[in-house]
């Protein structure tokens, strides 16, 4: 029963309440009308009895007059008239009371009826005697009839009076009843109206309350608070359905957000792993190289070469071999750790020297170093690959004098390391590709020490946890390229060394 009520739709609820209240009012009104009808009918009945008596009196007069007329004239018209009125009158008296009751008015009716029956008998006899020319008989009969006529007349008149007296008191009662009816109906209508208003207020409240709660919850969700409480469903009407749909939606949104969070986490982890894999691969490559060349043997060999050169007073050879030895030692020793900027610059010096020997001093290298900043810690193998890049792609195939400038300076809170060449330059497109990691290590030629630019960029990012550390600037074709590394100037890191 309760569940059934809960499942009723709003429309049905409204219609039901409306119908119920309307029916009650209609029933009350019908009853009022019926009561009024009853009273009016009784009022009618009161006067109807008097009206009937008057009719009776008239009919009686007709009988007497037509009989007298016939006795006077003996005309067939009068005869016809007599029979007609006699018929009418006997019909009328047939309606009168015949029983012996305790009511004196009804007893008077009975007397009138009985006397009238006798009267009609006598009048018939009179008319018969007249037709039979029995003069004596019709005269005495006529007298008798007249006597009876007078008695009946008196009875009717008296009964009329008595009835009127009775009716007056009945009328008083009835009009009193009508007054009562007025009060009662007014009372009922007012009472029912008040109750109806209360009922409708209650029902509409029960309909709009869940809506209001739902609206509040929706407002909170719209404001971004997904953790708002679920709207509880009171009934399975339209509002109930909307409420439960809203709840489902809320739950689904929460779940969805949770899932997105999870998948993002996964993606991040995968990226990290990819990077790790690459480093591990590099590691493996290095270890492979290391395994192939016994570094001590290499260094000792190079050192022996250097000593030999010195003994032969070939100073330039000595210096060259010395530089090569230093370059490789650095490579072997510090491939994977953080080092001071100073060491890195030294390595670049070594590298340039070796290249200049290789390429007969084609490369001009200029340094503008703020020495106070060189103790900053940076990832190892940072500058050399950049310089190598500049040499290989920037100034290798140019017609003019190649120049590479390395400058370290301070800008605001940043330590800036700039490697600028005057080579072929680089297109913005390619810069984007490089910066966004689109060029893989494999694309780079084998003519390198194996550490690519992308590796440098990635390690920088990892090291400083910041994307904006590395930038490549080129003003266009044949206008050179500048690689700019801006490191945060960290007092502590600076002091460490």
């Amino acid at each position, binding site marked *: 029963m*309760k569940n059934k*009520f*809960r499942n009723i739709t709003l429309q049905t609820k409204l219609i039901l309440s409306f119908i*119920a209240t309307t029916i*009650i009012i209609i*029933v*009350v009104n019908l*009853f009022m009308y019926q*009561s009024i009808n*009853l*009273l009016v009918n009784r009022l009618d009945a009161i006067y109807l009895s008097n009206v009937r008596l008057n009719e009776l009196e008239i009919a009686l007069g007709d009988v007497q007059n037509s009989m007298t007329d016939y006795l006077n004239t003996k005309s067939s018209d009068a005869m016809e008239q007599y029979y007609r009125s006699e018929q009418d009158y006997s019909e009328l008296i047939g309606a009168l009371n015949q*029983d*012996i*009751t*305790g*009511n*004196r008015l*009804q*007893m*008077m009716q*009975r*007397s009138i009826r*009985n*006397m009238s029956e*006798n*009267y009609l008998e006598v009048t018939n006899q009179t008319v018969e005697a007249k037709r039979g020319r029995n003069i004596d008989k019709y005269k005495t009969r006529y007298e008798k009839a007249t*006597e*009876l006529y007078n*008695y009946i007349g*008196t*009875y009717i008149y*008296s*009964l009329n*009076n*008595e009835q009127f007296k009775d009716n007056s008191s*009945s009328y008083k*009662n*009835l009009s*009193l*009843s009508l007054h*009562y*009816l007025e009060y*009662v109906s007014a*009372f*009922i209508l007012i*009472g*029912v109206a008040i*109750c*109806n208003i*209360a*009922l409708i207020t*209650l*029902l509409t*409240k*029960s309909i709009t309350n869940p809506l209001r709660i739902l609206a509040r919850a929706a407002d909170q969700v719209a404001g971004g608070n997904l953790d708002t*409480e*679920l709207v*509880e469903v*009171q*009934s399975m009407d339209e509002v109930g359905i909307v409420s439960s749909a809203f709840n489902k939606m809320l739950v689904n949104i929460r779940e969805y957000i949770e899932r997105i969070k999870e998948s993002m986490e996964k993606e991040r982890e995968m990226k990290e792993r990819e990077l790790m894999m690459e480093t591990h691969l590099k590691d493996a490559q290095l270890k492979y190289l290391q395994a192939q060349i016994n570094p001590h043997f290499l260094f000792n060999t190079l050192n022996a070469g250097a000593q030999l050169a010195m003994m032969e007073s070939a100073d330039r050879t000595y210096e060259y071999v010395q530089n090569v030895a230093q370059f490789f030692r650095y490579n072997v020793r510090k491939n994977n750790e953080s080092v001071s900027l100073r060491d890195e610059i030294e390595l670049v010096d070594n590298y340039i020297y070796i290249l200049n020997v290789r390429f007969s001093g084609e490369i001009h290298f200029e340094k503008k170093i703020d020495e106070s900043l060189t103790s900053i810690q940076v990832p190892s193998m940072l500058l050399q690959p950049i310089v190598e890049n500049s040499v290989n792609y920037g100034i290798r195939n140019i017609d003019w004098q190649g120049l590479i400038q390395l400058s370290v300076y301070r800008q605001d809170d940043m330590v800036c390391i700039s490697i600028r060449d005057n080579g072929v330059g680089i297109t913005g497109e390619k810069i984007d590709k490089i910066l966004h990691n689109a060029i893989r290590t494999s694309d780079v030629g084998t003519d390198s020490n194996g550490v690519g630019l992308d590796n440098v960029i990635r390690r920088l990012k990892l090291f400083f946890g910041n994307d904006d550390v590395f930038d490549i600037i080129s003003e266009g074709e044949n206008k050179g390229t500048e690689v700019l590394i801006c490191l945060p100037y960290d007092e502590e890191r600076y002091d460490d060394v």
Partner: protein
Amino acid sequence: MQRHSSQKKNTEESGKQIRGKNKIAFVSIGIILVMIIITTGSLLFFKTQLMHTAQKEISQAKRNYDNYYVMINSDNNSSFWQSVFQGATEQAEATNTYVEVLGENLSVDYSEAEQMEIAIESKVDGIIVEANESLQMRKLIDEAVTAGIPVVTALGDNTSSTRQSYVGISSYNLGREYGKQVNSIADSIYGAQEQTDNMMTNINPLQVLVLINANAEDSSQNIVFSGIQEAVENQSDYSGKINLEAKAINTEGAFAAEESIRNIFMTEEQPPDIIICLNELNTTCVYQAVVDYNQVGQINIIGYYNSETILKAIDRSVIYSTISVDTKQMGAYCVDALNEYGESGYVSEYYAVDTTLINGDNVRNYLGGDADEE
């Protein structure tokens, strides 16, 4: 854990909501009940109000009776006949019969003869009539009996008619009772005089006036008169000293009796010492006249019937004594006679009604009794 607690909270809240929902349902049902109570209550109230007024009208016409008797008498307003009618009604109710005084509701005052005719024409089941010995009355009674309507005469009889029964007082006994009263008055007067004066021959004879209805051609008054005569002659020590005289009182026409009685006091040189009245009206008239003409103590009244006025007069010693008729018994006997005739076709010719003497000694009982009845 947090989720669990929030769920719990949810169920708690929904519980609260369901309770709220129940409350709404209960209040709605309550309101509907109030509406129904208001409506039905008011309508019931109105119905009972209506019924109450309707009941009054219906109750009168509810009962159906087996027989319908009418009562015809010379004076509807006298307490004598009203009492007779009351007795008849009580008896009739017990036997499921309806009795009515004829002509009560009519706008015309009909004579007894006319009333008889109306009763015959109305085909009543029985007639109780205060008859007289007139020829007209005899004819009417015979006519009724021929028409199959039994007739019982009450108080006054028409012996020559074919009436079924007579309910009344034995006139001879009544006369003797009056005679006794006359004797006792004579005893008290002459007894007192004897002691002071032995010369009885000097004393004036006692004048006794018997008021007789002049228009009644009826022998019962004569019988009463002869009863008085006999009692006075045979039983009194002073019979020679009592002068009995009958006075006819004209009752034809309205107020005639009262005028005739006044005439007695105005014209007679020597007012009578004792006046004997044979009906209630005369008794009351004589009593009033005696008071008016300042004859209290001079004239002894021997009355008839025990109306309130007469009893009070006895209490004040204006009326010496009165003969009371058991009127209720008379009414009851009339109805009994008619019923018996209706049932068996036979009925006793004569029903004697009890009479009682009321004088100064026992009047208190009747005054009290009357008061009780009212």
